[in-house]
């Protein structure tokens, strides 16, 4: 399961590095994406990527700091959403 989480985090980080950051900028799994790294437009693009890539529909009430702070918190949010869907 830890591998799954890491795989999700890596896919998110790959997207962030390739599409949202200036060349040469680095980012890790736990790094704060919101404070300075990404601007508001980039955050929206990231949320769009997460929805599309992982089959979610992020509702406004899910679009909060706790869920999008870092690659790790996005991965937790994705897993929670998947579990909730399977359970429900």
């Amino acid at each position, binding site marked *: 399961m830890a591998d799954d989480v890491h795989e999700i985090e890596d896919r998110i980080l790959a997207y962030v590095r390739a599409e949202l950051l200036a060349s040469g900028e680095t980012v890790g799994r736990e790094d704060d994406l919101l404070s300075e790294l990404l601007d508001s437009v980039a955050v929206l693009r990231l949320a769009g990527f997460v929805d599309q890539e992982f089959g979610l529909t992020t509702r406004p009430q899910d*679009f909060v*700091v706790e869920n999008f702070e870092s690659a790790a918190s996005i991965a937790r949010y994705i897993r929670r959403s998947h579990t909730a869907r399977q359970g429900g």
Partner: protein
Amino acid sequence: MIVEAAQHRAESVAVRCGGESLLYGELLLRAGAVAHTLRDLGVRRQDRVAVLVGKGFAVPASFYGVLAAGATLVPIDPNSPVRQIVRILRAVGARHLVTEPKRAGVVAEALGHCPDVAHVVGLEEIEGRDDVFCMPWNEVGTRHETELPDIAVLASDPSYVLHTSGSTGVPKLIRHTHSSAMSFVGWAADEYSLTPDDRLSNHASHHTCFATFDFYAAAYAGAATVVLTPAVLKMPGSLSALMERERLSVWYSVPTALVQLSLRGVLEARDLSALRWILFAGETFPEKHLRRLRQQLPGARFSHVYGSTEVNVCTCYHLPEQEAPSPLPIGRPCANAIADVVDEELRPVADGEEGELLICGDTVMSGYWNEPGETAASSEQVFVRRPAGGGFENVFFRTGDRVRRLADGNLTFGGRADDQIKVRGHRVELGEVESALLSVEGVEHAAAFAVPDSEGSSKILAAVVGSVGSADTVVAQLRGRLPVHAVPSRVELLDTLPRTPTGKVDRKALRRSARTEERKG
């Protein structure tokens, strides 16, 4: 100002940030510590002290500390590219910089190009720079003087120099005096009846004129400022939760932020009944979004505020309870301003006719900071002297904004006279974006143009001609050179640029083809 608040309300909250409070008594101590430290480091009246910090308690502590030292505050946008920071530091001739540990890398790089900056407050050291004297915050904090330095400061002394984003070339450096700042602050506190019970939002970065209201007007009234951190501002659902938790009563921002709140802020789930005033400025508020937001926040009054960094706020329009007129007026001149609408020869035009807005008022800047060769903006070009009788003159500021005066005295905004546009509330000169594009290797011709985005603001697109690998490489190179909001969201590679018959780049044609493209996509 804070001395008074601190004496009467030492135990009242001055600033809230990240769930923590800074009381007026504590703020006075921190500001005093900064002021005495700066004096000891040689700061004297009218010296420029640059402040490069992100949102947090360091903002008010350094703001009031620099002013209490008798110096001129130069707040720098922490998101500026290094070359921009260098330009500002050099242009104002700063010898002292106040910053924080997380900016050590940027500061070290910038100071490599700024030999005059000899003192840095907020860092332990700068690697390889023994010649720069550094004093970390914990050492500043050991000073516990209850009195501020005893210094004579004149109302006509410069209080702060604010900068515009100045995409590539050169930022405009706008110099205000204590008098122009306080005129705005006093007017704002009065107009919106601010009291010690109020809690004002701080949405904008500390280097903007919005922050003047957020911090100084709050302190003037003994109210609290609630700092909205960048992470929260990008998440409307978190933002509205914080507004509820902090019981915000006065909000001031660009419309974009409010559009986001309205669209994604789950406002129906929040109790924002404490919110009594919403002020917005800097851009047109798209009517459908404004209408919806007013329905979502029925208890709040809305005020459309107009001005620029050069003049603070000079007109305002309080929306009536019923449906607001369209287009939304920018209102009438404030009590401390006079407005004239003139033609190209600077002659007044009749009511209902469009002309340029001239402003004469107590809140107007004293001028652009102008070191030869360093800044592009010239005070001479924007100030107009008009006879006032008895051999005296009134000095009017040319806003560059096209307006019309309606029969009821309200003004409506009709666009810019030049190529300046607003992107999510940030000023961008398209010409500067074009020079940045041209500085990319291989680019021969470039045109930047604006199209409306889906939320009522503008986005920048660009077309380039030349031998560059791909559009993406051009964009990637711009990211380090321009502030994020000025980077075109799309760059297209063309064989030639469309031209008008007179040989000018045909931006209209570019905009048309961009819209067609978007419809296809």
